[in-house]
């Protein structure tokens, strides 16, 4: 057996140890970002989700000013936890629109009555079509869309107090 070949297995081991040590030192970032970040919002038009609040279309999102788009549902428990933080964002001047996924008008109305209504428009997405076209697979999820209707930021899962600085930063950046 030639001299060099004898050391090949050892070399493979060292390569393996090198790669996994790197991974142990740099923990995996499990976030999966939508490929649509940096892309325009796909075109859609949604009927109002409940009485008294306008529906939502993609044109409403390209309004010249940034907007926060919240994907939620009345049946979603984390959305309740998130509601007070959306109110807080609204008070600090963030314009928020929403898409209610697989919901019924009376349920949406009850949700808004119980947990506050920070939304300017709410579109109803009964079969999750628009949600899926946004690259979102769960509720709640939030997007920051800039004045030209381009998605700048995606936040998956409920917004928690610790997330507010990042969201405000992205909001300022989208202006």
């Amino acid at each position, binding site marked *: 057996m030639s001299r060099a070949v*004898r050391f090949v297995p050892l070399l493979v081991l060292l390569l393996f*140890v090198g790669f996994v040590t*790197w*991974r142990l030192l740099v923990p995996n970032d499990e976030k999966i970002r939508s490929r649509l970040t940096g892309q325009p919002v796909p075109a859609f038009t949604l009927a109002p989700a409940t009485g008294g609040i306008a529906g939502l279309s993609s044109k409403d999102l390209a309004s010249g000013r940034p907007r926060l788009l919240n994907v939620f549902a009345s049946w979603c428990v984390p959305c309740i936890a998130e509601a007070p933080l959306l109110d807080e964002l609204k008070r600090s001047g963030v314009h928020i629109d929403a898409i209610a996924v697989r919901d019924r008008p009376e349920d949406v109305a009850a949700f808004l009555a119980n947990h506050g209504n920070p939304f300017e428009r709410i579109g109803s997405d009964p079969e999750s079509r628009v949600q899926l076209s946004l690259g979102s697979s769960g509720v709640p999820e939030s997007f920051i869309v800039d004045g030209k209707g381009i998605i700048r930021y995606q936040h998956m899962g409920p917004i928690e107090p610790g997330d507010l600085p990042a969201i405000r930063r992205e909001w300022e950046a989208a202006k």
Partner: protein
Amino acid sequence: MIAEAGLAALWLAAALAALQLALSLGAGGEQGRAIATVRAVAIGQGLLTAIAFAALILLFLRSDMSVLLVAENSHSQKPWLYKFAGAWGNHEGSMLLWVMVLALAGAVLALLERRLDERTLGASLGAQAALALGFFAFLLIASNPFERLSPAPIDGRGLNPLLQDPGLAFHPPTLYLGYVGLSVAFSIAVGGLIRRQVGPAIARAMRPWVLAAWIMLTLGITAGSYWAYYELGWGGWWFWDPVENASLMPWLAATALLHSVNVLAARGGLRAWTMMLALVAFSMSMVGTFLVRSGILTSVHAFAVDPTRGSFILALLTLYIGGALTLFALRIVDVKEGAQFDPVSREGGLVANNLLLSVILGIVFVGTLYPLIAEALSGEKLSVGPPYFNSVASPLALILAALMLIAPQLRWRRDAAPILPRLAPGMLVAIAALVASFILAPGIGLLPRLGLALGAGLLPASVQPLFGRSLRRTPLAVWGMALAHLGVAVAILGMASDSAFTRERLVAARPGDTVAVGPWLVEFRQVMPAAGANWTALEAELRASRGSGVTVLKPQSRFFPEPPTTTNEAAIDTSWNGQLYAVLGERDEQGRWQLRLWWKPFVTLIWLGGMLIALGGALALLGRLVRERRQRRNVEEAFA
């Protein structure tokens, strides 16, 4: 008290492992090297570890919630089988099981091994003790299974419902016996390299261990595959998940080793290669354990993820594998290769088998680690899934199957006689099956088609070595080979049939609807609540019929309160020619239920084949042991 006793037994066992290592390094002088001394220490170490494991089982059976591990993984309201199996359904318990198998394997080696000279056996037992010592340290420092919890909670957190299945009781212990059984082959190879004794005696000592470990791995993988198939409710039998690959890699190495160790034992050839495979096989077990336990790769097997533990195992495996491979690199130059052979010979066929298995092993290894490599080099996140593995590994596996048609018919050393007549039965059946597949199923893919042809050809080819011999005098090992190869043929037929002929329907159905899948008409009757010992469920009633006769299938969507989890329990109807597989999903607002139905012709052959392979291995092992005992008795009588 039980917990403390278990912990004390574990510490004592660790101390004995340290003593055994020191003795084999020469600390006790010649007396310390004497095999009687080492044997006593090794057996003591094995027994103490078994006591520790028994203590853990007892704690789980008694639901002693003052022990952290029990509180986190068990619940007093659980059926006793799951309390029992729950002892290894968690990180610490399963590592204790691993260490117990390691220590017991060392004890059995010390007790029974007679083929090796004393010094080589002593070196091998030293290597085994070094392995055990590291894993004892890992348990005692980073994963103490006996840690107390104060104050004790009123009840435990429960076991992951996916694991609340009889499969858990058997699947991990079987796999562990296999993984860790390979440690003995590793230790014997290290002992042989240290003592510069790399010859047939080493191979004969190693062979029963390799066979036994390989049987266990085969059974464990087969059982795991079936368990995933019915428990996960995804309708597939192999997902190329990192943890599945972690069990497949040692199996591939052990399969190669199993074949090359025979060449070394019988013909004195393939010395360096056999030693390498013996080191690689257990290395793959350790790498697999590391990948599983560190959580470095994303997997459906969400084990306790802890970077400290990961680093610990990584340090151990670097030390052990690195040390062994360095020893190999330094010593292997001195090893003289044994008898020469022609390329067209049994040895030639076995070398080709080894190369193909090693390439497949390399492919699985690279594919499993590729997401990690890609992210380290380019920062890109990606996943490697079935498309890669299926398209790269399957063709090689088919070439291997084609080789299996040929190689067992070849003679040792050189084969000058015309070969074609011997290959005719397998070849003709394969060609006939190929032609038949074009006529009967013109639309299927190339790989399944080749799989059907080769699988069919292998049926006669694998039993052919039995022909032309006196069956009564044929060694059991040859029967074992024929049966194991037959098992491969059967498994290939099952896999090819599953990928060629499976029919799948995903529908939203209302009670009263009828769905057609393959030859079946499935009537969705109703959904009713159901309850078990520690779960409640929604259960669908499906009436499936084809031609005459009706089968009732009851897939469930189960809810477990402890811990709160929902699982899908698939309902499977097995008939001689396949399985009808039904999964109940969610209900939508319009009152329609998601129903997933598969008709999988001959899918059961996959696991039947796996069991035949293991049975063949068991026959071969029995044959080897019986024959050796007889030979030893003859030698003793000759000297008497």
